[in-house]
């Protein structure tokens, strides 16, 4: 689990230790991004100090419904997946890939060629504080998408390779969470630099953190902040937090071979049923931390001297997503929904050797029609489920 030389084992941080970690990162030039409260939900944003973390806030998530709630303790990480995922930062919703400028005729630049092309290069330094097991797993999945194979994405690479991940093991899964059944949580297994477990205390006392370094960078950070050695009791207390989370998963993905099930169910009547409910709004795909589709838009200005190529998020619930010469091959909601589910849970294995779902529950919560993918799978699997559970 831990890297060589990383360390001396887990340590305990109190609030001052966590605050020092945030200050150290900011001092070193990192943008520290963490969940914050905005507009009635948890939203990732830049924080200036631990005071910006949502102390004492929790959430209640159901299909198609999200509400914040006050907790009866002082936890800073006592809620499940925030509204959107870290995908927004590594694979931004809209980004300019390159710009071209046409210098005026007769200028020196003009001689060099008609257009001067500039490739956009941003080199953000993000520290992700509070990433959950499912989210870290989702980043690892998007790594395969954007960095695996022959053609990699330079923008993603720049943001990803610098990003420092300070993950937090989950304490409070929502009713929509099912990471356990996707083998993606609630404990962070890999992919982070530091993993914290928050042990909350009653309101008037500060929470404390068991901190483990998973990388050299993480170990270096922990060495620079005040901490205490972790006692066996502290380790037990932290383990109990994660065990309790695992015991409180809100839902479960049916335990079937999803790849096989879906490839055999392309004409299942359930697709018609879900097509009556699905709004083709795209929300599920855009909040999903692993969906990676995009579309490029070439833009010129009115005078024709500036041009640029933008990339924006796209979704298989857009008619244009399947547009080929002459029309769209998936023109109805039935085939759009089927594309989403069969790709996410089935053909993703063929493409990337893994499922495309980490069980974060976002597509369930943020679906304005309250459609629950685990429920859809249960309906499609019907007879298969009876075979395995007599």
């Amino acid at each position, binding site marked *: 689990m831990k890297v060589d030389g990383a360390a001396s084992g887990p340590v305990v941080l109190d609030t001052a230790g966590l605050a020092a970690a945030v200050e150290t990162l900011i001092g070193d030039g990192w943008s520290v991004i963490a969940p914050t409260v905005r507009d009635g939900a948890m939203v990732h944003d830049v924080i200036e100090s631990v005071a910006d973390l949502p102390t004492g806030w929790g959430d209640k998530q159901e299909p198609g419904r999200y509400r914040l709630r006050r907790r009866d303790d002082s936890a800073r990480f006592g809620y499940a997946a925030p509204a959107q995922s870290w995908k*927004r930062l590594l694979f931004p919703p809209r980004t300019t890939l390159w710009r071209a400028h046409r210098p005026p005729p007769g200028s020196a630049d003009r001689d060099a060629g008609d257009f001067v092309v500039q490739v956009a290069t941003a080199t953000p330094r993000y520290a992700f504080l509070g990433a959950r097991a499912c989210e870290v797993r989702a980043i690892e999945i998007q790594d395969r998408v954007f960095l695996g194979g022959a053609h990699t994405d330079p923008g993603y690479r720049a943001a990803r390779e610098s990003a420092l991940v300070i993950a937090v093991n989950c304490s409070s899964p929502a009713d929509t969470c099912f990471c356990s059944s996707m083998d993606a949580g609630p404990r962070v297994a890999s992919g982070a630099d530091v993993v914290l477990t928050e042990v909350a205390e009653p309101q008037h006392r500060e929470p404390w953190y068991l901190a483990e370094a998973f990388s050299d960078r993480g170990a270096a950070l922990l060495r620079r902040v005040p901490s205490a050695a972790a006692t066996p009791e502290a380790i037990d207390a932290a383990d109990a937090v994660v065990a309790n989370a695992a015991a409180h998963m809100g839902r479960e993905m049916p335990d079937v071979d999803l790849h096989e099930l879906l490839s055999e169910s392309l004409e299942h009547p359930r697709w018609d049923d879900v097509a009556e409910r*699905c709004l083709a*709004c795209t929300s599920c795909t855009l909040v999903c931390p692993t969906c990676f589709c995009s579309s490029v838009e070439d833009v*010129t200005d009115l005078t*024709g001297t500036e041009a640029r190529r933008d990339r924006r998020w796209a979704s298989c619930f857009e008619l244009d997503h399947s547009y080929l010469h002459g029309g769209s091959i998936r023109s109805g909601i039935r085939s759009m929904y089927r594309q989403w589910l069969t790709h996410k849970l089935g053909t993703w294995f063929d493409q990337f050797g893994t499922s495309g779902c980490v069980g974060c529950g976002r597509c369930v919560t943020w679906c304005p029609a309250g459609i629950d993918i685990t429920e859809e799978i249960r309906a499609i699997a019907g007879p298969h489920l009876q075979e395995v559970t007599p």
Partner: protein
Amino acid sequence: MSTDKPSVAVWKFASCDGCQLTLLDCEDELLEVAGEVALAYFLEAGLTSVRGSYALSLVEGSITTADDARRIQEVRQASRTLVTIGACATAGGIQALRNFSEVDEFRSIVYAHPEFVETLGTSTPISAHVRVDLELRGCPISKAQLVETISAFLHGRRPNISGRSVCSECKERGNVCVTVAGGTPCLGPITHAGCEALCPAYHRGCYGCYGPADTTNAPSLVVRLREGGMADDDIVRVLRTFNAYADDFRDASEAVAAGKGAE
């Protein structure tokens, strides 16, 4: 008017002028190309014949009179490319509410001398009368989409106008969903993008001013609105605003008005 510059004409039919205000609001951008295009405004719905020919016609407003029905044919004849701008021109506008009722009744109530008011029984979109090359949605249209369309036209490329839903833009913008997190009714899931999710960004539900998206499921949204506690009368009202007569909105409001699908 010089002949080598592409000529852009702006035509007005039944509408409030809001979309043309968007055009005026683009002055800074349009000044840049003042040397490259010749812009002509035909704001008055005059009875004179259409003269000249135009590379691009921007058409605002819906067809509500027999004269307009004739004039739009002439505008089409005179235009190489015809783009309709706004909810009136693309869906009949708010004045298409007349399509759900008897115009004669209104006419006699509203006007002192109804015999002087010549009008058709319906307000129809431009596309019901002539071939339309591109429709810009919205009440009013978005400045960014208008500039994008004119730029694309001038440089012979396809404009980037997507028919996805407002939810896509909401997620792109990073808004927290007002329906899911606040229980506020929102037409965003069935509404055409283009406004950059303006209303949800200010914590209000989408009013559907861009009309139906490419792919919609209005009957399902009606179910959700009912579950959220909205009365059928209010559902009919929310579907019957700027795009009341756009197919998907009209079919849904008529079904609700007829009491279909209610428990």
